[in-house]
């Protein structure tokens, strides 16, 4: 007995081991073909719990090991196309061959319901109360907690990782893309539910035609009326500085308002928000008149090319009001109003050097300007967005009234300049989509009218030798009145043909303008109008009919695109007083071709060629002289400028992401044929008389830029180097001398960016520039500029940011050093940001830059803001 127990214990594992058997075999069809992908299922006899399995390979073979105590096994062959076969076999290693009979099987459809949040159609609804936490305040805080929704630090809302395309409150879109103002300041207690509308196509007529994969978000409010807001306040010293932002808002289901008041004298250009708002489609605005025809100006100093808060001496107040009203018949009316009041002061010095083969002229000027601008802009949008059609009409007005004064000292002689250039503009922009046959046709219409009466006064008077030879002019006053009308209408659609997508657009544009100007001179305290040569009464008309066709073709790694714009243009200019004018008719074809090809995973080449004919802007032509600024008297009595330009570009890149090694080389070449030459007549006192002459000439321009960068993972650093070279050559006419000028520009920029620790990043970069000017191949000037930048960015703990930036500039013999410090603390829980800034720590007071053109070099020294400390806090109420 004992013996047998021992025997059992001894043999049990062996027995189990003996129980493991190997089954193998083949699966073939009745025709003897090997069958792959056949499931072999092995069960204990009579059971449906699998204990082993195999899947047959390409040769129909299979093999499986089975561990079972049973004396027999059930084995089954199962597949899609063959009848299942089940057999009982003895539990021992053996070979089993299945010969399966072909059978057409019905595989019934089955569906598993996904565990979903409450869903109806494409809309997902989240109950705010069930996601809100104790410390949450705004709706943006609660959005963070909802699965699938994320809010970025910038305020941008993502659904499933993609930005939402509309932010509605009660189905209304008041703010467009600037919804952060609402989401951050709307208390969550006012919101009943957040709705996510998946695959939201905001233009309803496109709903079934153009898919959208972005979601929209809609806030359903609890109460009929909700009022809330936010504010930011900051203050600093030397002198007393302030920065304020107060934004109250009100929402109802039919009417919504958001207002904002912002003011500062800390060098923040709040008016920038305006330009960022009106981000326009480049294709649509092409061919429109320049937005702001500043024909006259006072002399200013070129602003430094760095952070504006170092030099902008301002006092700005901005008022913004947005309102939306829901009308009957699916119409919505939206109004966005802005008012800006801004006072700026500019101080500086300029040194101008003019080079000609004969001599070199040098002028020194110091100036102080005071600018007072008032700007009012209103935009009224009427929108109807229904299944049958789409209509969006924007009526916009903007008006400016201003006064700009400046005191100049030219080579120690004083001069006063003052300018008023009020501006009024009214425009209407319509976009409509309607079905025509099987295509959707898009109509666009743009109509605009503007009026700018401008007045420039300079005293003492200048250009005495032409205005009053021998006499003294006490003051000069240029008066100018420009009225412009422009209309552009077009229709377009897109269709595909043999893999090429073709988008034709047919349109007609018309422009009409009148320019009146006269020059007044004061002599012996008497104002009198100057002779007819200094006046204009010019009417202009421009007709343009165009057919734009864009083609694109894509095959594998090759993309070809072509633009074939064809236009018929007619321009007529007529000056009644001077009895001068011109007529011009042109058929212009401006083809452009480009090819992009990926040679392999790492190499890529691109090339393009374009030929453009550009007709100059009518604003540039005037038969009489105009005093543009205190030192420039201009006449453009020549034919309209025409430029024919060939552009060639080539690009090659090698990017290896495995080794983090990136390189590219770009070459750009253009040849431009101009019909006009501008003659510069520089007087001894630095004033210039500019005349346009019909004299064909050609300009050449080359540009070569190379770039290389590599990431070193061991040092957690990116090292890069960029070099560019450009060369421009063309002819100039200065004081009746025609000569060739060329400029050479070399720029070298090494950079290293390193992560010093997990929370500290450092960056160093340098920038070396060399500008050389040649007159008839003799070097006339040679400027070098050297800049060093060293920055540290620290994120010591979540919510804290400390930035130190240092800059060193060396231009000729001028040296400037800047050091700025910024600390920001974000209390996420209370949505409060506290920020401390210490700008221009070393109190550097001036900054000097150089600008080089064909034959002149201007050195500008700008007086900067003094060192300042600024503390600010942002919070909601």
């Amino acid at each position, binding site marked *: 007995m004992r013996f047998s127990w021992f025997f059992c214990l001894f043999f049990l594992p062996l027995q189990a081991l003996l129980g493991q058997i190997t089954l193998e075999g083949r699966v073939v069809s009745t025709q003897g073909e090997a069958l792959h992908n056949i499931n072999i299922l092995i069960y204990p006899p009579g059971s449906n719990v699998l204990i082993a399995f195999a899947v047959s390979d390409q040769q129909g073979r299979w093999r499986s090991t089975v561990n079972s105590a049973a004396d027999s096994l059930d084995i089954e062959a199962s597949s*899609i196309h063959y009848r299942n076969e089940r057999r009982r076999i003895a539990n021992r290693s053996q070979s089993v061959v299945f010969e399966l009979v072909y059978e057409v099987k019905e595989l019934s459809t*089955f569906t598993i319901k996904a565990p979903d949040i409450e869903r109806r159609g494409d809309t997902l609804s989240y109950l705010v109360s069930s996601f809100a936490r104790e410390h949450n305040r705004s709706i943006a805080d609660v959005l963070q907690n909802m699965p699938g929704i994320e809010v970025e*630090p910038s305020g941008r809302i993502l659904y499933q990782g993609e930005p939402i395309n509309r932010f509605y409150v009660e189905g209304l879109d008041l703010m467009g893309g600037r919804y952060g103002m609402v989401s951050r300041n709307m208390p969550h207690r006012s919101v009943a539910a957040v709705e996510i509308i998946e695959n939201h196509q905001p233009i309803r007529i496109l709903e079934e035609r153009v898919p959208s994969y972005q979601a929209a978000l809609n806030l359903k409010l609890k109460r009929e009326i909700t009022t809330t807001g936010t504010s930011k306040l900051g203050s600093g010293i030397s002198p007393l500085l302030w920065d304020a932002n107060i934004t109250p808002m009100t929402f109802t289901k039919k009417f919504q308002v958001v207002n904002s008041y912002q003011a500062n004298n800390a060098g923040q250009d709040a008016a920038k928000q305006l330009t960022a708002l009106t981000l326009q489609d480049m294709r649509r605005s092409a061919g429109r008149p320049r937005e702001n025809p500043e024909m006259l100006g006072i002399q200013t100093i070129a602003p430094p090319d760095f952070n504006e808060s170092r030099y902008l001496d301002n006092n700005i107040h901005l008022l913004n009001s947005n309102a939306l009203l829901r009308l009957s018949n699916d119409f919505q009316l939206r109004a966005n109003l802005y008012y800006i009041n801004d006072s700026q002061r500019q101080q500086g010095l300029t040194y101008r050097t003019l080079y000609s083969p004969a001599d070199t002229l040098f002028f020194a000027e110091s100036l102080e300007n005071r600018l007072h601008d008032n700007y009012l802009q209103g935009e009224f949008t009427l929108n109807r967005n229904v299944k049958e059609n789409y209509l969006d009409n924007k009526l916009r007005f903007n008006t400016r009234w201003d006064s700009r004064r400046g005191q100049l000292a030219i080579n120690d002689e004083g001069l006063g300049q003052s300018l008023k250039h009020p501006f009024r503009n009214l425009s209407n922009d319509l976009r409509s989509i309607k079905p025509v046959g*099987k295509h959707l046709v898009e109509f666009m219409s743009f109509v605009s009218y503007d009026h700018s009466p401008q007045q420039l006064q300079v005293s003492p008077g200048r250009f005495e030798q032409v205005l009053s030879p021998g006499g003294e002019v006490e003051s000069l006053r240029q008066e100018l009145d420009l009225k412009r009308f422009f209309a552009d209408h077009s229709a377009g659609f897109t*269709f*595909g043909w043999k893999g090429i997508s073709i988008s034709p657009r047919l349109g007609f544009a018309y422009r009409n303008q009148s320019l009146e100007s006269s020059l007044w001179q004061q002599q012996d305290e008497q104002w009198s109008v100057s002779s007819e040569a200094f006046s204009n009464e010019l009417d202009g008309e421009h007709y343009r009919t165009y057919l734009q066709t864009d083609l694109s073709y894509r095959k594998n790694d090759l993309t070809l695109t072509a633009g074939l714009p064809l236009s018929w243009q007619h321009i007529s200019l007529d000056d009644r007083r001077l009895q001068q004018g011109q007529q011009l008719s042109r058929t212009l074809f401006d083809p452009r071709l480009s090819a992009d090809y990926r040679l392999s995973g790492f190499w890529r080449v691109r090339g393009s060629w374009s030929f453009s004919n550009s007709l100059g802007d009518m604003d540039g032509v005037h038969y009489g002289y105009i005093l543009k600024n205190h030192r420039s008297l201009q006449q453009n009595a020549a034919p309209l400028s025409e430029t024919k330009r060939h552009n060639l570009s080539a690009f090659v890149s090698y990017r290896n992401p*495995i080794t*983090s090694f990136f390189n590219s080389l770009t070459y750009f070449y253009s040849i431009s044929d101009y019909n006009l030459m501008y003659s510069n007549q520089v007087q001894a006192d630095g004033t210039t008389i500019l005349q346009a002459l019909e004299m064909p000439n050609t300009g050449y321009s080359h540009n070569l830029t190379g770039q290389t960068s590599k*990431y070193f993972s061991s040092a957690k650093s990116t090292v890069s180097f960029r070099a560019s070279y450009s060369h421009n050559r063309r002819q100039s006419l200065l004081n009746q001398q025609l000569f060739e000028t060329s400029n050479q520009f070399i720029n070298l920029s090494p950079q290293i960016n390193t992560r010093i620790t997990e929370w500290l990043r450092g960056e160093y970069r340098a920038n070396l520039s060399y500008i050389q000017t040649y007159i008839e191949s003799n070097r006339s000037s040679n400027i070098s500029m050297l800049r060093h930048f060293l920055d540290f960015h620290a994120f010591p703990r979540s919510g804290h940011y400390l930035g130190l930036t240092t800059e060193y500039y060396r231009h000729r013999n001028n040296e400037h050093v800047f050091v700025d410090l910024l600390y920001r603390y974000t209390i996420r829980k209370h949505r409060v940001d506290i920020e401390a800034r210490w700008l221009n720590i070393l109190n550097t007071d001036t900054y000097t830059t150089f600008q080089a053109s064909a034959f002149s070099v201007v050195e500008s020294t700008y007086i900067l803001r003094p060192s300042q400390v600024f503390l600010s806090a942002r919070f909601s109420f």
Partner: protein
Amino acid sequence: MKISCFLLLVFFAIQTNAQDYLTPVDKILFKGTYNLWYQPDTTRPGKYQRDKVLLQVGENISKSLSLNLFLRDSIIMHVEPSVIWSDMRIFPPVNFYFQVMKNHPQGKITTVDNVFTDVYTYTEAFDLFDWVLTGEKDSISGYACQKATTTFAGRDWIAWFSPEIPVSDGPYKFHGLPGLIIRIYDTDHHYNFDLESFRPEENQNNVLFTKRTLIPTTKKVFLEALKHFLRNAAGSILAGNEAMAEHPESLERIERAVSMFNNPIELKAE
């Protein structure tokens, strides 16, 4: 409704334009859709995102990819379906770029996947999984399923498969069980695939493979490159685009956004 209308358009596109961009490698017999709930960020447990993963089963070859990648590819092939508005965002957001081709080439699994904007490809042996059967059985949506476990790419996986559907396949790379995988998840529940639908393909559609130029590599190198990018997105982006250096805070933000996806499905190469 919108989706189905669009899908029609997409299938039309495949039939007319497929040869330019994708090559057919097999005929689709069945198509399946899995709901994928995953945790992109391990530091925020319980914060799930959802995606859909398709399985196209052919006679010899099968393909698995995300629904949005499939839709995006279809749009690319179709160029512009009478769309005037080229500036509109007509492409769906793609969170997963993998395309797993099983038994293509024969006896191999080919994977095409992205790291940021670069497209890599690598192959693995067909016999990737060592499944262990458990005796546990359950019924999912009326189909009798059995549980099997395996270890793959640094995670332990639990699969429920149904021998009633004799298709030895599943989402992503998963396959090799004697029946369709109905549900598969890792033991930490970071990646959870649930079958939503599986049905025979009625239209004559093909399993397609990309003709684009890819960067050939190995899975080890690919996972290195991915890990490298996820750990130091800023450095990798800077090397390719140095202008970003001027925006340290947005760089930090991108890095933070990338760090929110720190949980790839495959943690290590075997």
